[in-house]
């Protein structure tokens, strides 16, 4: 017969053992060791946006929505195009109605609650378009803050979301300085651009790259020195967005201006 003290002791040990999460143990994995020795893989996906070529047609946004099954009329999108208009008095106006999905067909700038702002053609000093998408950061804050590990970085640098494990806390959405994340209106979990991972891992281009008529968007492999995108990133003057956050973004821009947010 077990006395009470002993029973309590054993229960405590059993409960203690049960609550110790398995994740606390790191299982030895030979492939991890190999990867650490030889460097990770042969691919590092990167993106190149040439803002000088973008005309704001919105074909990329359309293609992305269809390809990745983000409801067409929902006011969220994995990729979008921003319009910047600088006036002669030094002011900058920015808009991206419906993420630029339907192109920019009016001169009026959408200021949301403030309504449409009209700028006369002669007042414009400069205007350009900037496509945006997930930067697939080398130091992704979204992966860092996910409490359950539902969002993770693949070996080739792309950040993915596990729809079956995401609890929908929104911490990753808050953690992203580029606001590329949102809740999927159908699956109700975190959603983001993943460079069309299902396509690029099979040798295809992303939907937006294929849809762009002007080659403003290109995708490449940074670890391949012969890749034309890699060559441009290595030899020309490229820039990245919001470098100050230390996220090491991997979407590179040509012709970026200081107004770009």
């Amino acid at each position: 017969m077990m006395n009470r003290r002993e029973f309590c002791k054993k229960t405590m040990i059993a409960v203690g053992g049960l609550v110790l999460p398995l994740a606390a143990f790191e299982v030895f994995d030979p492939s991890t060791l190999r990867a650490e020795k030889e460097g990770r893989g042969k691919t590092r996906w990167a993106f190149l946006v040439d803002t000088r070529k973008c005309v704001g047609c919105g074909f990329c946004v359309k293609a992305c929505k269809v390809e990745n099954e983000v409801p067409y009329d929902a006011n969220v999108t994995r990729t979008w195009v921003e319009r910047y208009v600088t006036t002669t008095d030094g002011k900058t106006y920015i808009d991206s109605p419906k993420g630029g999905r339907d192109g920019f067909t009016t001169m009026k700038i959408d200021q949301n609650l403030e309504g449409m702002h009209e700028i006369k053609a002669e007042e414009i000093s400069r205007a350009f378009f900037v496509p945006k998408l997930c930067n697939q950061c080398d130091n992704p804050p979204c992966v860092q803050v996910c409490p359950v590990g539902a969002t993770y970085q693949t070996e080739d640098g792309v950040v993915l979301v596990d729809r079956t494990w995401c609890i929908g806390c929104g911490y990753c959405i808050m953690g992203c300085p580029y606001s590329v994340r949102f809740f999927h209106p159908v699956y109700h979990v975190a959603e983001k651009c993943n460079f069309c991972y299902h396509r690029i891992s099979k040798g295809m281009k992303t939907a937006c790259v294929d849809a762009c008529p002007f080659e403003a968007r290109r995708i490449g492999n940074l670890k391949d020195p012969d890749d034309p995108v890699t060559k441009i990133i290595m030899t020309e003057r490229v820039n990245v967005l919001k470098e100050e956050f230390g996220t090491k973004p991997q979407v590179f821009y040509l012709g970026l201006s200081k107004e770009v947010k």
Partner: protein
Amino acid sequence: MVHGEAWTLKEFFVYPNEYIYWSIQIVMYPFMTGLVAGAFVLSSLYHVFGVKQLKDIARFSLVFSLALLPVAMMPLLLHLQQPQRGINVMMTPHFTSAIAAFGIVFTTYGMIVASEIWFVYRRFIVESVLELRAKDGRSPVESLRLLVYSVISMGAMDISEAALHKDERAVGILAGIGIPVACFLHGYAGFIFGSVKANALWMTPLMPVIFICSAVVSGIALCIATYIVTMEIRKLIFAWRSKNDPDLPSTEELKSAEIHVVTMTAKYLVMFMILAITLEMLDLIFRGYTAVKSWDIVRKVIYEKDFTKIFILQYGLGNVVPFILLLMPRLTIRRALLATLLVLMGVFMMRWNVVIGGQAFSASFAGFMEYKLPLWPDSLETFKEGLMGALTVIVTPFVLFYLVTRILPVFGVKDSH
């Protein structure tokens, strides 16, 4: 409809995917955990530091902190898009995330509070068991009570002087461990916000400390307010009963005991208020002085968009007015009640101004977002993240407190301590 679209108004340029994703329930979360932590710290002032004047309110706030405990988790579950997966945080905690530790910290804290209460009430529980056992012809209610007390006594029936002395030591130790854990529980809620580098308003190392101080402030204020209300009700009941039973304490006796406790506790409230406000001011001054890139938009939010919420409601009515009310000589019950209610409102507004205020501007620094609290729900979402959801969270601890005190009364008990 996209999540967040129902209550977000955008102004100027806001990124297409930006909405107020963290709404009223995330305001409730630090507010409720703050109350838990604060109530516990108040009870510990007596148990650990031996502040004898707080004896009466110590047991009261300890039980209240137990009633608040499950409610600290409620807003999180109401906020999750996949609440049924909430347990994943315990199954695969991803420790680089501040939220991952929640399950562990919360359970540890819950166990400490529960065991401390058990030691405080052990004598009462055992005496109740003995008394009910000795009784012949128990009513069904009494049988049920006997069962409950027998189970929670866990068979430890020894109430000799030596055993009670051991209880007392256990309470001291548990309360001692409890203070850092309570501070951690809440400091860590501050860390969740303070560590978001993408948010210009949230990111400051002061955030956890500010959260702890305001937590203690709100916890003490709630304990005083609830204490006053319960005492008033007791006075009424006693006044009615003493017509038949002259041995009961008179209304005057209760009143003098009440004002004594309230005055003592209010002193601690004022102390923590000074600490909290100093830190908040330091943060504000520092932001203005350093004026980094984000200051332009943050300044517009603080001094223009949210001026009423920050300077009138939070600092004015929530800090300055109660400060004066509490420091004016000859504190009365009514004045103390008003002051503590204002303090609670102020701390709530502080949580609001941090959580909602942090999302009041776009990460592009070129536009604003406004949160329209859904008042009347037209879907599950607008219920959960609207006024009704918030009210549910507010009411629950009081219901739980009532239920807990049916078994563990907070007044007129001879405890082991």
